[in-house]
């Protein structure tokens, strides 16, 4: 090995602690980059392949009932490649071991397996056999949640009659990668399952012979989706069409795509915080090294090493640190990515999901570590290159100190001698102190965003379930029913109070923008289902006009006072103009509310209801569940407790890991910044401090000079970090501001406190390490060496 390279390695070894700290910060940044982007790649690659191989539909539409003959007419629409007409129905299930009712979605499939759209991939067992109407294939999630498999059965209430569904197979479908029930916060495999059943049997059970109520289209490449949707709507209108929609709004695909978008966003933003801090650390450390090695640089140049060689020598320093951090980070990122993918595998179900680390992600990772190295090294390397060899022969002139601002203001009597030294040093290197402060603030900020999600979710759940939806159970009827149904329901055992629910599917139009959603009618002064304003107070419903989720208004380009067109997709399908009376901030989905009576008038109906909100005496809950399971008019039962459980389960799992890594990574940054700042101060001032020791100062006194500086920097950085964190949290909330869900921006004092504490602990740890060095300061050695 060449002597100059040996010098490099020994120099690195000399300050291995600092080198390690910087490499760790880079490693973390690169690991996150690799983990997020490789997970993104793996998921989106799998998604694409899965959709292609199993013919995921392009356009989805539900309707009331259309004759089979319409299928041919749909197929004639130019650009349509394949049409899949189906019968889809929701039923209440009675599953062994569950007192609560479970909702099942039955989806028809041909009796003989053909290449249908949204095709099944069998995981276990077999496809249904012709002529056996009770045979079903079930989703894997549901089967796993209940330990069901081929040979088991569940009982369903179908059209008023209880029927045993015999499970013959377990399967997955691209339509249900994310098996969430519409309107739910989180998937709940125990309480929602999909069953594929013979078209003939299903049609039979739901009076759908010779007809269908759901259709999926696959388009030819290059076909105009908008046009096909419009023509499909035209055809389905007569048959109670609920509005065709692009796969973009198909719930499973929507969630998956939204998750993918976030992964990619995270992967391209978060790592740069780390790499920015790393570049700063490289800059500080390398600048210091070049200044310490002034005379060595001069000697190298005098001995005939060119500027290029000297510059390369110090660049290599930075490249080695960044490169090793980058390589280890990439390997860590690979493991993290695999772990993330495994975690995703629990929420998104694919028949095949292989971790893929694309070469361009690896190259990107190396590229960004290189970038950090170059940015971090450039200033110091330029200094080394520019250093005139003759100049460097002579020692650096003593640093120019001056009295600090506080002293010039005449306030010095408030400060002790060591305190003055601290202040002078900070004032002499204001930029570096500032950069340290920014670095530490970033780590504080990272901690805040890691923890703030807990606060946000706490508020979200509280608002959602204690202020807005105070009912214990939300019932959905198979068909809207007359007002008598409410009385019936309220007489069920355990029901304390009941409120009618009425919602109709609509398409909203504003100019050329449109969205499909539902309008929900609310009774005057509701006690259960309420709408909540941005200050989390229940909103009073305006007698005229509609209330709308702010996000929906944004999407449709509407404001308070704007007028929009509401096309009702049920009954006589009235088309109405409505004024946006007010906007509300809700966290889940998008919704439109209006006065219940006004909605009845629109629909020209009596006090019909499409469901009911129930408050239940938990003591009688089991009896109520037993009744609900057998009620033919009930299509779905949503339990608040179950929703909260499902939410907490998923959050616990994800958040635990997320928070652990966040604290770990933020601590690495803090330690990296504080430790390096301390080591550099120590290196710059060890002569001064040793001289003070010789003059009789104690160890404690000289450490207080050095550590006082760090303490001051940390103290300034902590509140700043909390503010940065609040800013980060606001950015996060914006990043998560989607049509599917949103998070409230709340940061609790607990989050601030814990973040401040972790930063303080990391700083203290670094301080103690430096303090140990200070205690072992070799007075003779330090004073002997020239700098």
């Amino acid at each position, binding site marked *: 090995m*060449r*002597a*100059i390279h*040996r*010098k490099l390695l*020994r*120099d690195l070894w*000399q300050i291995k602690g600092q080198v390690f700290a910087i490499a760790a910060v880079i490693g973390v940044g690169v690991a996150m980059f690799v983990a997020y982007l490789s997970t993104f790649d793996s998921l989106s690659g799998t998604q694409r392949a899965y959709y292609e191989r199993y013919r995921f539909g392009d356009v989805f539409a539900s309707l009331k009932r259309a004759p089979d003959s319409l299928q041919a007419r749909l197929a004639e629409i130019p650009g349509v490649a394949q049409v899949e007409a189906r019968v889809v129905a929701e039923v209440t299930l009675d599953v062994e071991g569950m007192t609560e009712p479970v909702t099942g979605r039955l989806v028809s499939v041909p009796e003989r397996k053909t290449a249908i759209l949204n095709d099944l991939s069998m995981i276990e067992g077999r496809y249904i056999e012709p002529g056996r109407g009770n045979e079903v294939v079930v989703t894997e999630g549901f089967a796993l949640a209940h330990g069901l498999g081929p040979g088991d059965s569940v009982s369903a209430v179908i059209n008023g009659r209880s029927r045993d569904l015999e499970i013959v197979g377990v399967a997955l479908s691209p339509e249900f990668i994310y098996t969430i029930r519409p309107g739910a916060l989180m998937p709940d495999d125990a309480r929602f399952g999909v069953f594929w059943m013979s078209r003939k049997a299903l049609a039979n059970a739901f009076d759908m012979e010779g007809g269908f109520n759901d259709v999926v289209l696959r388009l030819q490449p290059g076909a105009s989706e908008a046009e096909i949707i419009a023509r499909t709507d035209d055809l389905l209108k007569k048959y109670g069409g609920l509005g065709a929609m692009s796969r973009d709004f198909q719930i499973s695909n929507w969630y998956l795509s939204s998750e993918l978008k976030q992964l990619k966003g995270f992967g391209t933003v978060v790592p740069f915080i780390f790499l920015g801090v790393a570049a700063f650390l490289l800059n500080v450390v390398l600048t210091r090294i070049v200044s310490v090695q002034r*005379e*060595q640089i*001069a*000697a*190298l*140049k*005098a*001995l*005939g*090493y*060119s*500027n290029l060689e000297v510059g390369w020598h110090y660049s290599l320093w930075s490249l080695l640190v960044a490169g090793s951090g980058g390589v280890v980070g990439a390997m860590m990122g690979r493991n993290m990515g695999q772990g993330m993918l495994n975690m995703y595998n629990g929420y998104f179900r694919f028949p095949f999901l292989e971790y893929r680390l694309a070469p361009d992600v690896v190259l990107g990772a190396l590229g960004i570590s290189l970038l950090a190295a170059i940015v971090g090294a450039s200033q110091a390397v330029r200094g080394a290159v520019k250093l*005139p*060899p*003759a100049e460097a*022969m002579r020692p650096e002139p003593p640093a120019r100190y001056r009295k600090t601002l506080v002293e010039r203001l005449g306030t010095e009597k408030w400060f002790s001698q060591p305190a003055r030294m601290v202040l002078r040093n900070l004032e002499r290197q204001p930029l570096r102190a500032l950069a340290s402060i920014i670095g530490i603030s970033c780590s504080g900020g990272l901690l805040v965003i890691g923890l703030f999600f807990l606060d946000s979710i706490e508020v979200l759940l509280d608002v959602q379930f204690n202020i807005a939806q105070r009912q214990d159970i939300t019932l959905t009827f198979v068909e809207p029913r007359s007002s008598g149904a409410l009385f019936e329901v309220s007489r069920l055992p355990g029901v304390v109070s009941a409120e009618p629910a009425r919602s109709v599917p609509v398409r909203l139009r504003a100019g050329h923008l449109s969205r499909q959603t539902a309008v929900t009618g609310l009774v005057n002064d509701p006690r259960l289902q309420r709408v909540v304003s941005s200050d989390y107070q229940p909103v009073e419903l305006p007698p005229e006009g509609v209330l709308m989720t702010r996000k929906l208004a944004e999407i449709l380009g509407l404001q308070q006072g704007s007028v929009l067109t509401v096309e009702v997709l049920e009954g006589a399908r009235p088309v109405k103009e409505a004024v946006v009376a007010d906007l509300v901030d809700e966290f889940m989905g998008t919704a439109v509310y209006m006065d219940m009576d006004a909605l009845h008038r629109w629909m020209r109906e009596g006090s019909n209801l499409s469901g009911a909100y129930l408050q239940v005496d938990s003591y009688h809950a089991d009896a109520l569940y037993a009744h609900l399971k057998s009620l033919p008019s009930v299509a779905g039962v949503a339990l608040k407790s179950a929703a909260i459980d499902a939410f907490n389960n998923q959050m616990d799992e994800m958040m635990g890991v997320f928070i652990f890594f966040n604290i770990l990574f933020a601590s690495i940054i803090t330690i990296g910044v504080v430790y390096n700042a301390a080591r550099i101060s120590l290196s710059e001032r060890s002569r001064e401090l040793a001289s003070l020791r010789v003059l009789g100062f104690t160890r404690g006194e000289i450490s207080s000079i050095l550590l006082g500086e760090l303490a001051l920097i940390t103290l300034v950085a902590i509140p700043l970090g909390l503010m940065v964190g609040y800013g980060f949290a606001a950015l996060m909330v914006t990043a998560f501001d989607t049509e599917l869900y949103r998070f409230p921006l709340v940061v609790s004092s607990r989050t601030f406190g814990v973040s401040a504490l972790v930063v303080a602990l990391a700083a203290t740890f670094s301080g103690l390490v430096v303090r140990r060095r200070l205690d072992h300061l070799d007075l003779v050695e330090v004073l002997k060496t*020239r700098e």
Partner: protein
Amino acid sequence: MIEVEAARQGTVAEGAVFIARGITKIYDMGEVQVHALRGVDLELDGGELTVLLGPSGSGKSTLLNILGGLDVPTAGQVFYRGGELTAADEKGLTRYRRHHVGFVFQFYNLIPSLTARENVALVTEISPDPLSPEEALDLVGLGDRMDHFPAQLSGGQQQRVAIARAVAKQPDVLLCDEPTGALDIETGVLVLEAIERVNREMGTTTAVITHNAAIAEMADRVVYLADGRIARVVNNDSKKDPRELRW
């Protein structure tokens, strides 16, 4: 530096190795200008050992740095074997230092993270026709300290490593800035012996800066500097062996 390369082939083999004409060096310090050199004319002959003497601040180091291609004068010309150093660019100066000059610094300037052998190797690795590090260290009597780090060597030993490092490339000129400045007599003598030996055995044109008038007795020629000018030049016909020097 084409001229310098040509010179190496031996076109101007005999006579003056260095010719300096009217070199001036002014440091601009903002409010004040420091005149480090005020028009120096000087010739150094091949194989000669020259000692530069003068009070502190008289411009000795400045002159030596300019001759060694570490610095450029504000005005004036310097020729090395007929090639004009003052016309060379940064690259040319680097090549000149790399191939022709051996430097010994007052404060040794060894690389602390490299052993004696490695410090010498630093130079031999970039020279076209070097001694081996071992040979060079033997030459200065440090054959048994090759694997010591600078911190494990005394001042005199460090300075001898520096000399070994300077001569290992078999330079045409050896420039030493106060090589004994920080040493006691005995070690100083050892260092001077090493320099003298290189000058004698390898025929290296040598210039040594010192404060110490006694050292002048080992020189072929003594150049006295004062206040940035050459005060006088004395040819020394009775060169002494460094061992005979006393101060």
